[in-house]
């Protein structure tokens, strides 16, 4: 005679095994997973595909990516790891620092870099091109302003736990061989640039105003501070007026704010975070002609261009994202970048302010899109 408890337990196991499948079949609403996931289309089932094993792998991937309740599973598991073990899951892109400061793995890799630095000759040639471009643009009444943007690991260096820090001595090789080398190359050639890294690391403002502990990127307010410096370089290079003010405003945070991007990507419940975000308030612009602006670079450009658009001090604001996608503010209209095309010339050769994003984590060999952009502009502008 079967015990009722045995039946109950067997039913519980079956329920646990079939619940995700049932949820998948019934389309039960799952918890949203933040972050981009690779698309996994369902493969066509054919005898030949099974025989050659080209069906099995893609089907398993499709099944896993459509399994019901996986969002809840991920959040439960991550939340246990985060709060019980003070860690994010292995191989996650988000890593937990001290005092709940979140880091992107890529930034920690940069912090721990001890090789793959610029070849000095290559760096010299790169800096020469930047100097020539800036000089030529300046003659045309335009400003080409490189901005060295810090990594979060630079601004929150003291919050990096020992387990995420290689013992590389002081100063760290990346400080000397990447940031230091680039800064020296720019200074040596008398290039007007903005050292936003120095700006943020020596600022007397509270650090969480400059960079939210839960953010990958700097705050909009920091973007404003950097734009203020860009405006100064613009005046120096062109002699034209451009006032740019930044008044700190703590706005109420919303779940989709960029200051919470790493928190969202951690896919974890109850991550401690501030409930406000740091933005800048601008006074109305003075009357007169307004210059146009383009920022060429990484996602850090967004902090600059959004604040620039808010400031109303530019006639047009654009971002050339990774030298691949051109987006115009404030409507976010986007198009692909095709260097040397008519459309490209109409935009890229006619701006007044060119912000050139030298994010320090990208000052390594292998990231060529910025050098490509300099080459493309030089080919058209430098005689």
């Amino acid at each position, binding site marked *: 005679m*079967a*015990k009722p408890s*045995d*039946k109950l*337990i*067997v039913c*519980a*196991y*079956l329920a*646990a*095994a*079939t619940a*995700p*499948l049932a949820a998948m079949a019934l389309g039960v609403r799952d918890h949203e*997973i933040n*972050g*981009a996931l*690779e698309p996994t289309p369902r493969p066509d089932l054919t005898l030949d595909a*099974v*025989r050659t*094993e080209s069906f*099995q792998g893609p*089907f*398993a991937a499709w*099944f*896993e*990516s459509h*399994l019901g309740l996986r969002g809840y*599973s*991920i959040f*439960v*598991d991550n939340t246990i*790891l985060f709060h019980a*073990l*003070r*860690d994010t*899951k*292995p*191989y*996650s*892109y988000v890593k937990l620092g001290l005092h709940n400061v979140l880091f*992107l793995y*890529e930034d920690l890799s940069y912090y*721990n870099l*001890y090789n793959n630095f610029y070849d000095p000759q290559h760096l010299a040639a790169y800096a020469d091109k930047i100097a020539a471009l800036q000089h030529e643009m300046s003659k045309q009444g335009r400003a080409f302003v490189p901005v060295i943007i810090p990594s979060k690991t630079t601004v929150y260096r003291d919050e990096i736990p*020992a*387990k*995420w820090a*290689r*013992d*590389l001595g002081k100063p760290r090789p990346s400080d000397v061989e990447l940031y230091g080398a680039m800064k020296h190359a720019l200074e040596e050639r008398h290039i007007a640039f903005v050292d936003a890294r120095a700006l943020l690391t020596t600022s007397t403002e509270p650090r969480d105003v400059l960079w939210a502990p839960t953010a*990958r*990127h700097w705050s909009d307010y920091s973007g404003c501070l950097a734009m203020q410096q860009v405006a100064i370089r613009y005046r120096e290079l062109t002699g034209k007026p451009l006032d740019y003010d930044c008044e700190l405003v703590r706005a109420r945070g919303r779940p989709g704010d*960029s200051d919470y*991007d790493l928190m969202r*990507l951690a*896919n974890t419940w109850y991550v401690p975070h501030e409930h406000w975000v740091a933005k800048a308030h601008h006074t109305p612009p003075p009357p007169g002609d307004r210059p146009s602006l383009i920022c060429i670079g990484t*996602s850090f450009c*967004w*902090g600059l261009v959004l604040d620039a658009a808010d400031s109303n001090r530019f006639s047009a604001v654009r971002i050339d994202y990774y030298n691949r996608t051109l987006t115009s503010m404030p409507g976010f209209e986007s198009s692909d970048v095709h260097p040397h095309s008519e459309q490209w010339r109409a935009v890229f050769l006619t701006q007044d302010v060119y912000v050139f994003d030298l994010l320090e984590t990208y000052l390594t060999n292998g990231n060529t899109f910025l050098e490509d952009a300099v080459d493309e502009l030089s080919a058209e502008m430098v005689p």
Partner: protein
Amino acid sequence: VPFSSLLFVHLFLPAFLCAYWLTPRPAKNYTAIAGSLAFYAWGAPRFLPVVLGLGVVDYFVSHQIAASRGTRRAKLLLAAGVTMHLSVLVYFKYTNFFISELNSALGHFGIAPLTWTRVVLPIGVSFITFEEISYLCDVFRGDARPARRLSQYILFLTLFPHSIAGPIFRWKDLEAQLAERQHSWELVREGFERFAIGLAKKVLIADSVAIIADGVFALPREQVSSQLAWLGAAAYALQIYFDFSGYSDMAIGLGKLIGFRFKENFNRPYISASLTEFWTRWHISLSSWLRDYLYIPLGGNRKGRRRALVNLMIVFALSGLWHGAAWTFVVWGVYHGSFVTLERLLGDRYRRAPLVVQHVWTLAVVLVGWVFFRAGSAGQAIDMISAMAWPRSGAVGPLMGDLAPPLARLAFVLGIAIVLVPIATKYRDFAAWRDRFQLAAVGARVGCLALFLASAIHLTNMRITPLIYFKF
């Protein structure tokens, strides 16, 4: 489909169990065959006809052997059958290795290498081959009757709980169950619980300590300090035990779900006080197979001490080769064979050593042996072992957050406790304690169910890593 995959846990297993349990008793074997063939075809569709073909041949050959038992014809049939199975194993598992070694040798003499299309290794071929050989041998010896029905023999070969990674079954152990077996709620409950324990061993412990082992073995030579080398070897010792014994637990549990009772394949191997004991506790189905179908036929202990030791070395070398087609596996086998031989030579002198010394010695030998098993090449194995033997400091340390995240460290400590605490039973009788602290049945039931849920949830999480998205 690995047992520790979402596809198996949430699709194949429930679907198969529903179909199996709803099938009337006389037809249950056919449902089990269909499910097992589908399971095998998923992973090795092109090899399935070979498995089925060999099964049919075995079936007829075994009947011929039984009919002519004691004659020269039976011997010839057995030799032909065994040769056939070994040829299949050698072709699929070792051809690439032999050709690669041959080409390497030819290269030394400036001779152009042989062109060769690599042979794909079908899953489970090593296990299935050994089961087929033992079947023919047992029928030849009169230890087992030939299968009465072809379907039963095919089910024996392809039964999905064991077809891809063992344990190695013997026909004589399963024959009666293949013909008739009891199904009960209690057995199913036990099956789920055993499966849950195995899944947790694999997903929560083995896969977590694998982070440490993989990390250490992937480090450049200059970063492997002595401590890291020992950590890597210990992590791998835990990984391979929890992985393989977890898999065996899942296989035993799955068997119970469909009414089978399989033999145990592991018995707390790391509490062994000698290498000889270790091999009676580790991968028991393989050890006993090698003893019964290789060591004893070679003469075993019957032909003098020297011959017994030679037989031991042959068995261990071939055992190493069976584990993988690479010199590191052969070295691993010879290494273990050497220490088992040494123990035999020392005899009572070894056994008179303090028990604690025997334990430490055995663990150290096993741990170092795993380095050969895990290393990508003999060179890496020697590097690691030299780092274990002599203090070495790394020029640039590894990133400990990557190498040993808290989850891996917890699994490491938990794993060590699970495998080593039972050593205490060798020093003191804990029967009374066991009775006093035995978990209430309901607690154990709930614990297993919780392990199943935790494993399934963790498995889901580990399979999905959202990419970085950008700010807007």
